[in-house]
């Protein structure tokens, strides 16, 4: 048999290697099956045997190399199973957490609202650490543009409910805990019922009305709330309504105006930033559920990714004037049910982008109509009013970028472009486009006021171009 043979017999070698690989794989598979069957058999035996039997077995099997077994041998005065002792051994070895902390955790229940950027890491750690019952609320589906930060989901789950995906991952990490799926949006109609079943609530949502609703619900039900938020390169973390501490409303009695509420889908977010805040949320929830340490109550943690700074600011205590948790507040469960959080915050509970309708029909054209105009060679100018860093991601050919914020400064540029395009002498058309078709309408309103009467916007923006005209056009 040739060893390092040059050219000859390579086909025969390949076939020989393949056949040997096949044999080995089959053997490996048989061995794994036998291991798994024996392990199952052993589990059955240990769970059905009495404590005395285990002790006897330990005497024969163990040679003292495993400290857990000597603990069993001496005494068990907690209700962690032998498997749990082994699984959580690194927790049990922590003097400040130990058996008591783990026993508390195993008996506790934690609800995570939102299985997105914050919820992903929070859920991973809460499942891994052995919380007895873990609830997950989310109504959304997994999308490709979630993957860079929502690390609990895998590509295989794109298009499927986040709750289903998150629950599957949690179960694969820890099959011994109970996982409850709530594949629905949290609303005043279901919040009381869902939250009341848990000891600790983790707010991992992405919008202002949900934050107020969850905080109020926690006050009404007397539940501690671990609240985290992340946007861009910053994160915030605080524990509310804990042991007489303030609630979210004590700090922010007036919701910020809509213009100040930004979403990750508009402003962007560096994936690891919610990852860090979500991990810290898991930590605070574990501390509360395990009854160890000092929760971040009455304090707020501010995380600044760019400058690598974490600041902890002492925040006010419970406000006696607070409309929900204050001394004279009579905020009841019934009032909670009737409270309109979307109206209060002037923002939608869902993260669906708003669709404005500011212009008359004759000031608008569809993306398909615009395509026809290009194909017909109509002389025109296309102004893209998105911010410059959006324009850099993708843009339509021959469009000029004049961000909405600097539209007035850009008017001469538009006039100049229109003159240059005017081949026929009958005037070039002016079209305006943006990402989704809201800013383009604002821009057209502004342009028409400035004398560009014929300005029209492209309905639905680049999103509709990608949807209706060019499916290969990148969306973001």
């Amino acid at each position, binding site marked *: 048999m040739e060893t390092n043979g040059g050219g000859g017999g390579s086909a025969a070698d390949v076939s020989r290697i393949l056949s040997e690989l096949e044999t080995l794989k089959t053997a490996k598979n048989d061995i794994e099956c036998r291991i798994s069957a024996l392990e199952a058999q052993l589990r059955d035996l240990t769970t059905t045997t009495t404590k005395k039997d285990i002790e006897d077995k330990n005497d024969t099997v163990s040679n003292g190399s495993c400290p857990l077994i000597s603990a069993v041998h001496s005494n068990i005065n907690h209700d962690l199973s032998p498997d749990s002792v082994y699984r959580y051994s690194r927790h049990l070895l922590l003097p400040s957490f130990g058996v008591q902390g783990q026993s508390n955790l195993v008996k506790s229940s934690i609800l995570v609202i939102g299985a997105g950027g914050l919820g992903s890491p929070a859920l991973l750690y809460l499942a891994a650490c052995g919380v007895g019952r873990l609830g997950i609320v989310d109504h959304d589906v997994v999308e490709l543009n979630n993957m860079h930060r929502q690390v609990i989901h895998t590509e295989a789950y794109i298009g499927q409910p986040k709750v289903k995906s998150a629950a599957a991952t949690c179960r694969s990490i820890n099959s011994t805990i109970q996982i409850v799926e709530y594949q629905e949006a949290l609303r005043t109609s279901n919040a009381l019922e869902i939250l009341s079943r848990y000891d600790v609530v983790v707010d991992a949502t992405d919008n202002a009305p949900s934050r107020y609703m969850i905080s109020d619900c926690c006050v009404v039900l007397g539940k501690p709330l671990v609240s985290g938020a*992340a946007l861009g390169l910053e994160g915030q973390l605080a524990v509310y309504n804990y042991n007489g501490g303030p609630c979210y409303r004590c700090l922010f009695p007036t919701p910020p105006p809509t213009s100040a509420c930004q979403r990750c889908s508009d402003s962007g977010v560096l994936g690891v930033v919610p990852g860090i805040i979500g991990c810290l949320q898991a930590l605070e929830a574990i501390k509360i559920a395990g009854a160890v340490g000092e929760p971040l109550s009455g304090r*707020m943690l501010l995380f600044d990714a760019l400058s690598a700074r974490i600041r902890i600011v002492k925040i006010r205590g419970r406000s006696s004037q607070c409309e929900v948790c204050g001394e004279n507040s009579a905020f009841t469960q019934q009032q909670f049910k009737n409270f309109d959080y979307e109206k209060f915050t002037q923002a939608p509970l869902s993260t669906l982008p708003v669709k404005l309708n500011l212009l008359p029909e004759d000031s608008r054209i569809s993306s398909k109509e615009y395509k026809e105009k290009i194909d017909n060679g109509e002389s025109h100018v296309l102004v893209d009013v998105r911010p410059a860093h959006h324009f850099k991601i993708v843009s339509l050919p021959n469009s000029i970028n004049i961000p909405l914020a600097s539209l007035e400064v850009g008017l001469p540029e538009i006039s100049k472009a229109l003159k240059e395009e005017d081949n026929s002498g009958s005037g070039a058309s002016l079209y305006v486009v943006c990402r989704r078709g809201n800013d383009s309408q604002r821009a057209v309103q502004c342009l028409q006021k400035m004398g560009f009467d014929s300005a029209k916007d492209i309905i639905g923006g680049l999103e509709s171009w990608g949807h209706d005209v060019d499916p290969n056009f990148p969306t973001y």
Partner: protein
Amino acid sequence: MDVTNIEIKTKNAECKPAENKGSSVQIKVLFFSRARDLTGLTELPLELSSGSTTQDCLNKLVARFPSLEEILGSMVLALNEEYTNESVIVQDKDELALIPPISGG
């Protein structure tokens, strides 16, 4: 970002000749989340006459950055990393932080 640097520099230049030491204090203002977007700054040295309150600081900031008005009603105000209210008198070298809530996730 360039704008940010220029702003800090000019402000530094403005603040350095604090001639009447007794009659003025210089504090550092820290901007977070939305306050950063609106001002384009992460921090800003601010000179005030001594005896000024945190409210005076806010007034001065809004005069300089009118768009800050939108978040005044909804933010945590912290002086030297502790919750404060508008009537507290600021001291030299104090740090005043404007912390609007983030709601993203």
